[in-house]
């Protein structure tokens, strides 16, 4: 294999990974994030299918690997822009999938189209792997390092630029890979022909970068149907595409949690949307927080924070900027200092610049009392030296939550027991955390939040956590108050009076009965008061949680999903809910993830079995090697993805920005594993059963050590400050170095003893990587990242056992 071909492999692998991330973003913008997981997972099966195709027809093509590579890479370059352009253009409406079976055909068609570029890339790289099996370490090195660098470059691009603008560049990288492969073609290539081919490919690949067509049912698109509504500004950020919308003729008036007795009407607002979801409101009430138009801020349920027993001029920490409403509320209600923790610089810039678009826009960041903190939220809190009287978060401090629990699978770094405990540590003695969230029916995420706060108080050694908690609710929102010290009589009175004034119901107030009078806001099933009472009852909470239909276990850093409440106990209800169109009552994102797991596993299984079925009438290729090949490559394929997904989820909690976590983990893991693959030939010059088994066993051991050495939650401050994130990544890189060994060693062995099975091994690895990623995500959701890592260790141990027990000695195997 020439250096030019190795470079082409690296470039194409980087482009394929970039395509994966970019297309995921485009689907998320056009549709919803969970559907991006589903659609891109299915599309990635193209890589597995390419292995199947190689196993079936690759033999004839292996004679000219560089030429075929060039053609396949050119196919990637041409098909990627076409596939990207079709997202949102095929009329697929995921919201109708339950109702309209025809939508499933559109979904299948979209997945097939999106699979083409991945199939092209997979075919090209798989062909090189099978043709140069003896140099598998070099091919795998190029593949992984290229992919790792591609992940870092893509994340860097998406931090500031729209995803659609990356499509031509990624396609061009594919075209360049094709050009490099042409250079690697033996014999003389006529320069004119080469130039023409490169130009044609580049011209096709570098088509216009069309923005994806968003679903007309996304809130931003619905807002734009109002007469005169228009986008004022857009910005890209690692957390998604932000837009600022004005609707002068039919003004936006967004005020979740407004009391039933409120007399003040919210003023017209600008709307902030992220990936078409939202809005977060930016009031058009002028720069003064005391303006009459902002009177409604005092009538919303989140305003209860300012009726607690606090200093007259509290210091406030706002968790998330949103449109600045919570900042304005704090300023209006007397805060002497307001810190805003917002990791998204693009959002802050958009809010700060809103006044340039509309002079009436409020200016929450212009007040000298306000300080904006751009940092990873957990780190910022861990190292904070300030103390706050109030920490507040509400639906208005975020932008773009998906409807119907679709975002249940999203990590919530500040919604875990550990995070709440850290926040309590940063409060003044009379301080409180005040969290407002949407009220669900039946109650679940709200009860889970109460359980999490209760567990955090218990973790701090509070003897009676219930005395530190209060909950009030309206018809669509609930507010949870968590105090560092037991709620004082003045605090309880303040909460009760506020609730009475604005027609909210106390669901839990220490020392007060919540059933003294009829509730103003009744729940149809279990009342929030009943639920909260059961969740915090000292002697019966465990039984209640165990029997409840939804998962109410506190969110932890290991399972940081505050909105995730689905449990297997819901399964008996699914048919009836499906028939009645009530599936949205459970976590929609999880349902989609389960569907993705089932479909990718089924299709992946077919792709793996297809070569065997197609050749059932022929003499089997290396029958002694089939068993261990499927067992070994499935195990390491799944194992690799379990480590990867667990590490991404773990880092996402620390950083608060999932895209950054993805880029860093992929960068560290793939480059490290690539380096491992690159030195595999030197480490193990003569490949055989012991080497393959030992490599897999080494990974299992490394993962076991990683599990046994938990990373400290806070920075280790000493002569040198050690960041736990950096420490974690060093450990991950070390394990990943070993993870780069098993695949190339096993491929080299196959290339020597059963070369006809190398493409099949590529197909198995490709399919396992896809369904493994989805399955790993489910394991992380329901069992935690530690369990996912432990499962990975187990899978590598299985791979080691399979290799040790089932790889036949060289003499016993027939060359394929």
């Amino acid at each position, binding site marked *: 294999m020439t250096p030019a071909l190795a470079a082409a492999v690296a470039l194409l692998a980087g482009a394929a990974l970039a395509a994966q991330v970019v297309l995921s973003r485009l689907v998320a913008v056009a549709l919803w994030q969970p559907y991006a997981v589903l659609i891109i997972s299915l599309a990635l099966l193209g890589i597995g299918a390419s292995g199947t195709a190689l196993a079936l027809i690759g033999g004839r093509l292996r004679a000219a690997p560089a030429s075929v590579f060039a053609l396949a890479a050119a196919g990637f370059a041409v098909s990627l822009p076409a596939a990207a352009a079709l997202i949102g253009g095929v009329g697929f409406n995921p919201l109708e999938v339950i109702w309209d079976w025809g939508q499933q055909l559109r979904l299948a068609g979209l997945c097939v189209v999106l699979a083409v570029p991945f199939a092209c890339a997979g075919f090209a790289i798989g062909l090189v792997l099978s043709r140069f099996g003896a140099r598998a370490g070099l091919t795998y090195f190029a593949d992984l390092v290229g992919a790792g660098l591609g992940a870092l470059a893509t994340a860097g691009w998406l931090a500031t630029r729209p995803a659609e603008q990356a499509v031509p560049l990624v396609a061009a990288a594919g075209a360049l890979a094709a050009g490099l492969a042409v250079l690697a073609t033996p014999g003389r290539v006529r320069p004119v022909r080469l130039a023409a081919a490169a130009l044609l490919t580049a011209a096709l690949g570098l088509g216009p970068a069309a923005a994806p067509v968003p679903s007309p049912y996304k809130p931003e698109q619905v807002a734009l149907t109002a007469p005169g509504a228009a986008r004022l500004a857009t910005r890209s950020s690692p957390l998604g595409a932000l837009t600022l919308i004005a609707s002068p003729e039919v003004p936006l008036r967004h005020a979740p949690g407004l009391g039933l007795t409120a007399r003040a009407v919210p003023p017209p607002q600008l709307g902030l949307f992220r990936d078409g979801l939202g809005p977060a409101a930016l009031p058009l009430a002028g720069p003064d927080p005391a303006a009459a138009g902002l009177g409604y801020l005092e009538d919303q349920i989140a305003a209860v924070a300012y009726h607690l027993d606090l200093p007259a001029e509290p210091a406030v920490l706002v968790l998330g900027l949103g449109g600045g409403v919570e900042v304005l509320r704090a300023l209006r209600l007397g805060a002497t200092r307001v810190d805003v923790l917002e990791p998204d610089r693009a959002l802050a810039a958009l809010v700060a610049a809103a006044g340039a678009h509309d002079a009436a826009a409020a200016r929450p960041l212009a007040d000298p009392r306000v300080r904006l903190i751009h940092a990873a939220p957990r780190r910022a809190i861990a190292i904070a030296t300030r103390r706050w009287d109030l920490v507040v978060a509400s639906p208005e401090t975020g932008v773009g939550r998906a409807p119907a629990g679709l975002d249940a699978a999203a990590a919530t770094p500040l919604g875990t027991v550990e995070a709440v405990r850290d926040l309590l540590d940063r409060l003044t003695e009379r301080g409180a955390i005040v969290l407002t969230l949407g009220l669900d029916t039946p109650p679940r995420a709200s009860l889970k939040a109460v359980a999490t706060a209760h567990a955090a108080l218990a973790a701090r050694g509070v003897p009676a956590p219930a005395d530190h908690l209060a909950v009030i609710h309206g018809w669509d929102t609930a507010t949870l108050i968590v105090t560092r010290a037991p709620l004082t009589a003045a605090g309880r009175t303040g909460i009760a009076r506020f609730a009475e004034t604005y027609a909210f119901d106390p669901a839990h107030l220490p020392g007060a009965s919540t059933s003294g009078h009829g509730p103003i806001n009744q729940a149809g099933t279990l009342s929030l008061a009943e639920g909260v009472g059961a969740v915090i009852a000292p002697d019966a909470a465990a039984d209640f949680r165990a029997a*409840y239909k939804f998962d109410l276990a506190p969110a932890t850093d290991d399972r940081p999903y505050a909105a995730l409440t689905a449990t297997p106990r819901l399964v008996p209800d699914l048919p009836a809910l499906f028939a009645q169109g009530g599936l949205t009552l459970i976590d929609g994102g999880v349902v989609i993830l389960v569907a993705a797991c089932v479909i990718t596993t089924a299709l992946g299984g077919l792709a793996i079995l297809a070569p065997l079925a197609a050749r059932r009438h022929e003499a089997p290729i290396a029958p002694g090697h089939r068993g261990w090949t499927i067992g070994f490559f499935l195990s390491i394929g799944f194992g690799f993805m379990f480590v990867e997904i667990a590490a991404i989820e773990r880092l996402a909690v620390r950083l608060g920005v999932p895209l950054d976590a993805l880029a860093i983990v992929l960068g560290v893991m793939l480059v490290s594993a690539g380096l491992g693959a690159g030195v595999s030939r030197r480490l193990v010059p003569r490949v055989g059963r012991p080497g393959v088994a030992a490599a897999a066993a080494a990974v299992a051991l490394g993962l076991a050590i990683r599990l046994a050495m938990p990373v400290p939650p806070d920075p280790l401050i000493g002569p040198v400050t050690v960041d736990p994130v950096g420490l974690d990544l060093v450990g991950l890189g070390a394990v990943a170095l070993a993870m780069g060994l098993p695949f190339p060693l096993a491929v080299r062995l196959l290339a020597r003893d059963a070369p006809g099975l190398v493409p099949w091994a590529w197909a198995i690895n490709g399919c396992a990587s896809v369904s493994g990623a989805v399955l790993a995500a489910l394991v992380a959701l329901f069992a935690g990242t530690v369990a996912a890592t432990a499962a990975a260790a187990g899978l590598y141990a299985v791979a080691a056992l399979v290799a040790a027990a089932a790889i036949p000695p060289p003499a016993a195997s027939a060359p394929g």
Partner: protein
Amino acid sequence: MIVITLVTALVIAVTLGGPAGAADAPVARAAERARMIDTITAIAAQTRVAGATGIERAVLDAIAQVPRHELVPANVAPHAYDDRPLPIGYGQTISQPYIVALMTDLLAVGPGDRVLEVGTGSGYQAAVLAALGCTVFTIEIVPALARRAAGDLARIGSQAVTVRQGDGYFGWPDQGPFDAVVVTAAASHIPPPLVAQLKPGGRMVIPVGPPFYVQHLVLVAKAADGSVTTRRLLPVRFVPLTGRR
């Protein structure tokens, strides 16, 4: 044979696919409407929302009178009587028939009542209320939807419905107070002007959920003394929650 096939296809297309003429509106697809009523009745009997054992007969009769297929775009008209929501353009949907029946039932209105609807959409909910004998005032943000609904409602003979294009947030003070209010547009809160325009003893219904799905219904009741209470209702069967009840 070919001619017969073409004629048959044409008849099917006219019956199922395109808007029927005003003359045949009352009878067209009556059998499908009857089946739809049966479905609504069956779901309501299973679900028992707010303790009710079913939908009031008057509501079902009103639904049976309204040619739903006349109020949806031609491309979805074949599915007009399926128990499912349908897209009507502009990011809007026409609700599942069972949900329309349930909402109408919860409003507890009858002949002579004045009803305000915020979010006209297809005009179907307004037509059902009109068929109950109510006088309906309905407001739609999207001009094209407002025009289309006004035209369709006039064509099917829903004379008691007045459609206005504009901002529904402030209600329709000139025509208030109302015996009932339906808010089918997405609402982050209950607009104070709508509460103010609700008569004492009046009811307001708000469906909550993403397009194509209703997660729950919020029933707002204004007592004789002007105080307001809310009740969240699940439109689907989902019991028991703890497995021990």
